[in-house]
């Protein structure tokens, strides 16, 4: 009798032979598992529909087989089907080797070997739940006497599975980047002082190493000519001052950035690793890295696309001020879609900022400086702003980044003066409180 791969269930028509559990010449019982088949859904145990002796095995481990393909030929043991269930002669049951499921770490198997023909030591109701959830109870360790599996064991197993699935490949916790890996006695070489790191520093350390470990970073460098933008700024700053705002470079860059993000929405997106989806956001909340005494803080300026340059400048000042005074609320530092880190006020040129996960890109601004530039075949003095765009290479390719930064540079270099019109409220205070209860 030929044993062929039976239908496996909805949508599963083929799989890879993960294990063959019988040998040629071996006697098998009806329903004994002969093969483990791995499909993209699960590892399925394939039973023989009848008792007999395995004459010839036609597949080998690693083979991809389809429904209807010949697995093995079975010699019937003969004899009439008796009414009372007579057990055909059998041999020691081979323990099915459990192939690890798609490389994922599986919680340990039950220490109690399963006996063919006898249900696992678990109540029928629990076995039903497991069936419905697609849980292989042979992998669950029973905590009760006799290795009996109870609901709590299944819960525990699920929690373990979840932990395994959610943990990113390398462990990211701990402040490994802050504390030295080994204990080193620095006082051997001179006097030292010890100071506990702050909780902000701990958080920064954790988030930075998490992002660094998970996100494959690439940084795209570029220069922007901001000579004209500075001229615009100069022309309008007096008017802004009257309205109580300080027209610095950052609000202008934010405006140019948002226009570019609107054209390249991937840079405003996030990656949902669990579901394997990219989440595009219809809002533009720009995080601003602020240097404070305790360390880096990143308040978020919400709906930057809907705000005038004046509103942005007012709000920016408020946010940065409160961040420095540590008067910023946690939720005011959440929900960003893209971050800007401006070091221009301090100095330095190009640098490679670290993406502020779950965002996918970050823009680092260096100090704008006078440079000799060739323009219209003449050497001219221009103010050049160094830009560094770091991005998550898992979902953004180099070409995307090049296109994005070109758009951005263009938006900066030919900044639309109309954006500077004082159409905003120009009110005095508290725009940052908007949207908060």
């Amino acid at each position, binding site marked *: *009798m030929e044993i062929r791969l*039976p*239908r496996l269930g909805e949508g599963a028509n083929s799989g890879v032979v993960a294990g063959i559990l019988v040998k040629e010449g071996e006697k098998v019982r*009806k*329903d004994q598992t002969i093969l483990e088949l791995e499909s993209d859904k699960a590892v399925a145990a394939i*039973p023989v*529909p*009848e008792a007999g002796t395995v004459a010839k095995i036609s597949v080998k481990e690693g083979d991809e087989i389809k429904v209807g393909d010949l697995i093995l030929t079975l010699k*019937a043991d003969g004899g*009439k*089907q*008796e*009414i*009372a*269930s*007579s*057990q055909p*002669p*059998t*041999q*020691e*049951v081979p323990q099915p080797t459990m192939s690890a499921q798609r490389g994922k770490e599986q919680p340990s198997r039950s220490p*109690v070997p399963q*006996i*063919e*023909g*006898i*249900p*696992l*030591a*678990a*109540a*029928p109701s629990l076995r*039903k739940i497991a*069936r*419905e959830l*697609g849980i292989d109870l042979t992998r669950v360790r*029973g905590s*009760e*006497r*006799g*290795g*009996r*599996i109870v609901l709590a064991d299944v819960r525990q197993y699920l929690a373990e599975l979840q932990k395994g699935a959610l943990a990113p490949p390398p462990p990211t916790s701990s402040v490994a980047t802050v504390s030295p890996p080994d204990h080193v006695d620095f006082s051997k070489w001179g006097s030292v002082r010890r100071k506990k790191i702050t909780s902000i520093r701990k958080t920064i350390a954790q988030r930075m190493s998490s992002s660094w470990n998970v996100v494959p970073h690439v940084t795209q460098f570029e220069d922007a000519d901001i000579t004209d933008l500075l001229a615009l700024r100069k022309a309008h700053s007096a008017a802004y001052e009257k309205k109580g705002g300080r027209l610095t470079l950052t609000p202008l860059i934010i405006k140019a950035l948002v226009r570019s993000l609107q054209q390249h929405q991937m840079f405003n997106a996030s990656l949902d690793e669990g579901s394997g989806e990219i989440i595009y956001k219809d809002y533009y909340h720009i995080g601003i890295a602020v240097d404070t005494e305790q360390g880096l803080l990143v308040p978020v300026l919400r709906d930057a696309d809907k705000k005038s340059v004046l509103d942005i400048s007012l709000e920016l000042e408020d946010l940065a001020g409160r961040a420095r005074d540590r008067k910023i609320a946690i939720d005011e530092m959440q929900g960003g879609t893209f971050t800007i880190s401006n070091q221009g006020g301090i100095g330095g040129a190009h640098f490679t900022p670290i993406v502020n996960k779950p965002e996918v890109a970050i823009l680092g601004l260096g100090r704008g400086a006078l440079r000799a530039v060739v323009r219209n075949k003449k050497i001219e003095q221009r103010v050049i702003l160094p830009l560094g765009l770091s991005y998550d290479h898992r979902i953004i390719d180099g070409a995307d980044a090049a296109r994005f930064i070109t758009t951005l540079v263009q938006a900066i270099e030919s900044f639309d003066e109309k954006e500077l019109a004082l159409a905003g409220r120009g009110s005095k205070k508290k725009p940052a409180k908007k949207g908060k209860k």
Partner: protein
Amino acid sequence: MRPIETEIVVLGGGVGGYSAAFYAADKGKKVVLVEQDDRLGGVCMNRGCIPSKAFLHATKLLKEADDSSARGITFGKPSINLDEMRAWKETIVQKLADGLAGLAKNRKVEVIRGRGYFEDSTTLRVETSDGQKFVHFNKAIVAVGSKPALPKAFDLGNKRIMTSDEALEIEEIPANLLVVGGGYIGMELGTVYAILGSKITMVEALDSLLLGADADLVRPVKRRAEKLFAEIRLGTKVGKMATSGKHIKVTMEVKGKEKEELFDRVLVSVGRTPLTNDLGLENTKVRKNDNGFIVVNPQQQTDDPVIYAVGDVVGGALLAHKAAREARIAVDVITGETNSFDSIIVPAVVFTDPEVAWCGITEAEAKERELPVEIVRFPWSASGRALSFDRTDGMTKLVIDPVTERVLGVGIVGAGAGDLISEGVLAIEMGATAEDLAESIHPHPTLSETMMEAAEAFYGYSTHIYAPKKKEQVEG
């Protein structure tokens, strides 16, 4: 005529068929049930479990009355009116049939009387008394069951050669009855006829009766049968049968010598054959095995994606409760639930005197598979309850995993074993340990205490038997 449209058609109205039809209807499906007999209920109700148990009950009364002279109670010689006995059986069966018909009606299951035949994987043709009907279905469940096997050599068209079907009609009480086959049907019906007054010769080709049951469970049954029957011949093959006037001439090989004997009647109980011929299965993708049983997977699916099969027709243990469980699985799978006949414990019960019942791993099976097990037995001679009705010829046995102490199998022989076995099924299904049984109070005086005491014996402290330190031997 327009075909009848239905979500599910069930072919065969036996235990498997009506269980599937009712359950599917309870789950909101439109169901058509096709049955060729006038009555629903199939073999179990009409010519199987129910009539056989009715007659066993009636004859048990005769036997008890006979046995009670030792207790100081004597009755006059009983008179047996076969017509009234048959009528009594008939009322039982009719009551059950009426009940089923009512249940079908309440659930709005459409029952079509007629013989079904698959035209293809979407259409069933039904030959009814008022012509052909066609049923268009989305899913079909085949539950056509089985019939007694009657080897060609015995099929002489002589009504003196009976199968269980005819034997349960009890046309007469033959003076000499040959029972061919010592399985449970032969043993049960042999018992009935023996008590009614027939001289029974039982012939079994194998070396033991009741294949599948452990030898120690069969022994008390055999001992009693040896008294009740004229003769039991094991390892004996029946060769030929021939009509010889009002007798059947039977040739068999006894101890290497051919022997010819005359019997008034012969009961052939050598197994059952699935009713898979002439069903039009060749017009579908359904596959049969070499013995004619339909091949299904643990979800009861045949090789045809829309056709399922349950009950005797798929083979395995040919028992009503197995059919009923398979019916649930098939319907669950059809309605999109996950269910599977996977490592399900099917208890077996033989309603001989005394009864035999077992479930899970038997002692013989454990030996054969070289499973490390510990066996504990509790003889009913130590049971007050068994003593109180003079039936100490019983035994309760547990097959236990010595490491986990889990109960892997239970075997019982003795009066009422069929009712006692359910505790064993529950214990195994729940993954209970011997200690779980020992720690559960069993009421006194009942036979169920034998389960508890057997479990206690595993730990060496059963009150009513002396079985010291068993457990330590295991560990040592």
